[in-house]
């Protein structure tokens, strides 16, 4: 099981802050996971429509879209940061 967490407008579009889910075995990279999210219904299709701008963190560490998911337990999705 993998915990998926969402922040800012990604969280609002998905409609929940987090969920715990079994990822398909075929999903092994961040890019594949973003593509898979789009297939999970209208809400997810909308939330991940502009997947290229969505940032991903694997176990609280930034990861590029080409990164392997490895054995990440917590995967976060969020817009570009606007702190500071």
């Amino acid at each position, binding site marked *: 099981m993998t915990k998926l967490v969402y*922040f800012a407008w990604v969280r609002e579009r998905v409609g929940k802050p987090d969920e715990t889910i079994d990822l398909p075995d075929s999903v092994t990279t961040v890019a594949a996971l973003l593509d898979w999210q789009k297939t999970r219904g209208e809400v997810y299709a909308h939330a991940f429509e502009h997947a290229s701008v969505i940032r991903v963190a694997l176990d609280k560490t*930034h990861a590029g879209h080409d990164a392997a998911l490895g054995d990440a337990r917590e995967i976060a999705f*969020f817009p*570009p*940061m*606007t*702190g*500071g």
Partner: protein
Amino acid sequence: MQGRSVPGATIRIQRDPFDVPAETARVTAGRADIGGIVAFTGLCRDEGGRLRALELEHYPGMAEDEIGRVAQTALARWPLLGLTAIHRFGMIAPGEDIVLVIAASAHRRAAFEAADFMMDYLKTRAPFWKREHLIDGTTGAWVESKAEDDAAAARW
């Protein structure tokens, strides 16, 4: 209040305001080798009177980790004698402080550069997101990231 342990640095993510003189005193306390200290405070603007508050969302745990990683890079790159980064979250009214970076060194250049670097990296890497709440009672948009912030971070 949440903190993260990076030797040589103080990192905190907190809802409450911070006290700049007290944080500066904490860096200089009990030592006489510091020759320069730079304290940068980022404040919430009123955006021409239209803003009631900024809401700052963050990713607990990762925010501390990421600022800690940036701090470790700064500590490795400049001969610092003190380094503090404090970032607030929650609802912040115009005029209030949002973020504090303090860098101390034997000489001014390292302190200026390290504080500048910390802010540039913190803005583009620390998982915080701002949303505007407007004076007319409506909730505005999530603030969009700026290309100039990425360009600023790329200078280093």
